[in-house]
């Protein structure tokens, strides 16, 4: 067993992880562990932009941005966090520019800004130009720029080191005469893909920045590698997961494939049409139409298809129409996504509308944190030394529906905060002793997958999981569909115990890797479904046909899902609630 010792260990090297590393690396001895190479992370697939009230092209301010974020999240946003994000957005963009990010420019040479869904002037009066962008490859530029700056600051990366366990100890703490169990971080266990060896990383601070869980769905914009590992590791170790019923379906995935076509297309003037050629968003969101937030547009599209106005041979998608835009304008602003349409569907966006349908895109929920990116072990208690940022975390700035561009912002603002606070904590704290036999659980996990001869195939179980999630836990949900999904997932979990991994070697055993990933996917699908069952109302990205209205009286709360084998009815997931933090805005009806 190899043991490494660092002040700070960061799990994941996408936007949040590398933004954290730039801060932490300059303050404390830091290592970044990633199951990929840093530049392969899915931040690079983000397209449209990063909002900040720079007011470079028209009047804007961070308070309007805060309001839009809160309203966009259907008032389930923690407003202290939204304020922090909207306020620090401005520096976050300027930081990136100073690091070298090649933003598009105005004629005066300033950072250019464009419209994006749900971002408005003066509390919903009209769309505002708030998104800072680099063509339709803003995420690519952010990922490259952050990696470049990690190279500049000599950040230490462990590439293709897959973290499989979080080492924590329970300490008894007595405060005001009350004794309780307090979790403390000792480090992580990591599997080196190249050699198949296990490594222990002892650390005073651990930051999870390992991204999302889109691969629980079949149709998704997410990379193959987004399997909810970080959320799964935390959950298995007794950390709750917050608001997991809220998953965002991005309206414009390439039909049948799920590949993302940025909302920037609609920001630049593209519109959605049904099979009758009708611009149907005029009916669903009369004021801002195609630039309504994603949950509303995705539901409207799904509804058009359900009511028989879908296009194509199976009438199962709608059309994104760019044909009224100048080809030169499309080339300048949307070069990548129009190429995706040409490459993957053989459609020419200059002259033909592009088939699109909602694609599973983003987990609003995740590991609960406060505005210092500290992880919570319950509603009030932080785990000293444990941090999370980005999609893996739930701070909660996105509430029940994230606005477009706010994820690139989230990773920069809270990645930076996580890096600073984790390093500062590490400089004052002592190492926690590694628990006895730290590899035991990981070895058991790997051995089970490697040695089982049950004959079940990982790919088959994963496919069945993705099929049931697409069918039953997508844009529309009911108690019936959710209960059926839970039942199916339970059955898949049983079969998962009998999987056989064909590759028995140690070197780059990606067959084994996929088996481990599937275990996390099953856990997370269960949590998402149980949480969706628990929330008997409709809010943001979570739409219950059997409870079609928002119910502030009973459900203006975050959900907290704990691993609990005694919760038999909900497949070992116990649901509790956590209050939403209000500062400025009282809930109103959400209309656009």
């Amino acid at each position, binding site marked *: 067993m190899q043991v490494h010792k660092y002040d700070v260990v960061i799990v994941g090297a996408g936007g949040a992880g590398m933004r954290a590393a730039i801060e932490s690396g300059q303050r404390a001895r830091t290592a970044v562990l990633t199951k990929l190479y840093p530049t392969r992370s899915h931040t690079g697939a983000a397209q449209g932009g990063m909002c900040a009230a720079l007011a470079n*092209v028209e009047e804007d301010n961070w308070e309007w941005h805060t309001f839009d974020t809160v309203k966009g999240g259907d008032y389930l946003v923690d407003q202290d966090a939204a304020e922090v994000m909207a306020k620090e957005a401005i520096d976050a963009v300027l930081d990136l520019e100073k690091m070298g990010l090649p933003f598009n420019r105005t004629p005066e040479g300033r950072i250019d800004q464009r419209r994006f869904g749900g971002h408005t002037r003066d509390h919903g009066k009209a769309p505002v130009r708030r998104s800072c962008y680099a063509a339709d490859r803003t995420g690519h530029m952010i990922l490259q720029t952050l990696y470049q700056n990690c190279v500049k600051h000599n950040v230490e990366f462990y590439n293709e080191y897959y973290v499989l366990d979080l080492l924590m100890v329970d300490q008894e703490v007595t405060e005001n005469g009350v004794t309780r169990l307090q979790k403390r971080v000792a480090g992580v266990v990591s599997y080196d893909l190249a050699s198949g060896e296990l490594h222990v990383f002892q650390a005073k601070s651990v930051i999870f920045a390992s991204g999302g869980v889109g691969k629980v769905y079949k149709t998704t914009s997410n990379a193959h590698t987004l399997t909810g590992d970080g959320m799964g590791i935390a959950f298995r170790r007794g950390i709750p997961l917050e608001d997991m019923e809220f998953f965002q379906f991005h309206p414009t995935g390439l039909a049948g494939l799920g590949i993302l076509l940025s909302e920037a297309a609609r920001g630049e003037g593209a519109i959605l049409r049904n099979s009758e050629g009708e611009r149907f968003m005029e009916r669903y969101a009369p004021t801002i139409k195609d630039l309504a937030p994603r949950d509303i547009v995705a539901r409207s599209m799904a509804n058009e298809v359900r009511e028989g106005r879908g296009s194509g041979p199976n009438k199962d998608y709608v059309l994104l129409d760019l044909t009224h835009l100048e080809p030169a304008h499309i080339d300048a602003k949307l070069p990548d996504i129009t190429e995706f349409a040409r490459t993957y569907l053989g459609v020419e966006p200059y002259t033909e509308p592009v088939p699109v349908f909602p694609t599973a895109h983003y987990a609003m929920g995740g590991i609960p944190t406060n505005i210092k990116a500290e992880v919570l072990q319950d509603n009030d208690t932080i785990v000293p030394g444990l941090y999370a940022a980005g999609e893996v975390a739930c701070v909660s700035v996105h509430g029940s529906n994230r606005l477009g561009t706010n994820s690139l912002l989230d990773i920069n603002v809270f990645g930076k905060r996580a890096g600073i606070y984790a390093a500062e904590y590490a400089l004052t704290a002592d190492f926690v002793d590694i628990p006895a036999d730290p590899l035991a659980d990981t070895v058991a996990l790997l051995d089970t997958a490697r040695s089982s001869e049950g004959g079940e195939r990982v*790919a088959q179980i994963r496919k069945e999981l993705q099929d049931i999630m697409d069918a039953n836990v997508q844009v529309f949900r009911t108690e019936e569909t959710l209960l059926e999904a839970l039942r199916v997932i339970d059955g898949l979990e049983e079969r998962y115990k009998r999987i056989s991994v*064909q590759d028995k*070697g140690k070197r*780059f055993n990606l067959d084994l890797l996929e088996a481990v990933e599937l275990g996390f996917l099953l856990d997370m699908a269960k949590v998402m479904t149980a949480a969706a069952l628990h929330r008997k109302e409709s809010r943001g990205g979570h739409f219950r046909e059997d409870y079609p209205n928002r119910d502030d009286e009973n459900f203006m709360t975050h959900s907290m899902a704990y691993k609990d084998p005694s919760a038999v009815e909900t497949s070992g997931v116990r649901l509790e609630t956590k209050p939403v933090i209000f500062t400025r805005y009282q809930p109103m009806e959400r209309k656009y």
Partner: protein
Amino acid sequence: MSTPTIEKEPASKVELPAGVGGGEIPSFDITLKVRRYNPEVSDEAHWDEWQLTMYGTDRVLDALHKVKWEHDGSVSFRRSCAHGVCGSDAMRINGRNRLACKTLLKDLDTSKPILVEPIKGLPVEKDLIVDMEPFFQSYREIMPFLITKGHEPTRERLQSAEDRERYDDTTKCILCAACTSSCPVFWTDGQYFGPAAIVNAHRFIFDSRDDAGDMRLEILNDKEGVWRCRTTFNCSEACPRGIQVTKAISEVKQAILTRKI
């Protein structure tokens, strides 16, 4: 590159032409041959082949997944985003460097076996997986980050749209190594920086905000630098992002000669 105002609202309703959005997706059969190598098993590489039924929009990556998921789980390759932006799955497909996730099977000659091999010039670790470390080492050596002098402005640095456009092409690089590992000079001389490192140097040399162009030009003036390039254009053909790699290298050569950026 400024934002023009969209003056005209598009029509509420239009007549759609017939057949919009395409028809049924056809299926077809292919033979996929993959070059296998696993030093845990044997020092010798060999070819394995599979007959597969695939669909109209399937890519080479889909065929590899079909093999791994349904036939032989030990077939090993890197992939992540599966739509050409992460750069994980550069490989030699029918002798040409391409991304497996961006190469549609129907665009290949499916009457013959489709040959898939690891990219050349980097040590093979297992099957299609190569050691990327030498590639990233060259990248790091050209100082791939913005270097500026003087005080930082409080707001953003100004840059005209024209100055921004000057280096746009080379910002698109995803570090997939398709260019570098297609270069005959790199195959025979592993010390050569290779096209990708030069592309990333170009991205900063021609960025009006950067003050370290001379330092980078000096690095690339080395005997393992740009002068090893023999302008065979393999790199430009290989680039999945459509970067004019050879042109970028020529511009760097020109800048070294004239010391004008």
